């Protein structure tokens, strides 16, 4: 069965701090990996995705994620967070017609 684990449920950072949100997945077969973000009052939207090729994926707003196959991980990173990055972040793993999300990480960035 597919599953996605996000171990950090709540993260609080100061502006300019570096960010790394963990994501581990369990999936049989070829997997596509996603990070979606939900800013306060907005809809879920895609941050970045990995299908194949370069395991380091660049997304919007300076985010990146690294696919490490041996660790079944797809951690999200940003070198320097801004107050506007305050949001809930969801990791997803999928293939074909189904996408499985993790429980989400609530990030709060303080000024």
């Amino acid at each position: 069965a597919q599953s996605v684990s996000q171990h950090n449920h709540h993260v609080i950072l100061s502006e300019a701090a570096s960010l790394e949100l963990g994501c581990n997945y369990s999936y049989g077969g070829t997997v596509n990996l996603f990070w979606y973000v939900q800013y306060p009052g907005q809809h879920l939207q895609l941050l970045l995705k990995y299908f194949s090729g370069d395991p380091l994926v660049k997304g919007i707003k300076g985010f990146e994620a690294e696919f490490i196959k041996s660790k079944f991980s797809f951690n999200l990173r940003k070198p320097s967070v801004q107050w506007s990055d305050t949001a809930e972040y969801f990791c997803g793993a999928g293939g074909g017609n189904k996408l499985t999300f993790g429980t989400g990480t609530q990030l709060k960035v303080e000024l």
Partner: protein
Amino acid sequence: DAGVTQSPTHLIKTRGQQVTLRCSPKSGHDTVSWYQQALGQGPQFIFQYYEEEERQRGNFPDRFSGHQFPNYSSELNVNALLLGDSALYLCASSFGSGGAGTDTQYFGPGTRLTVL
């Protein structure tokens, strides 16, 4: 260009009742997926519709059913409501036959269902 829209915004029902939620996909999109998001949880995949057929289903009972119309809009029906069905129901649309696990999905604002 309208994004994904859902109606109603909020809904209150009692146990045993039936409910219908509606979704209009983003313009140009032909695939609709439905998710249930309980409080403090990530969205859970219910099913996906493409070409008016259910193409994939998550671990949800048959009480959850859906429909896709020729204009690509979709309905989610839940029968015999239980207290545990209280959640935010999200609709997501995408284009193409790749599916929810492949294509970029655009999410709507959701319908908040409360079952008393």
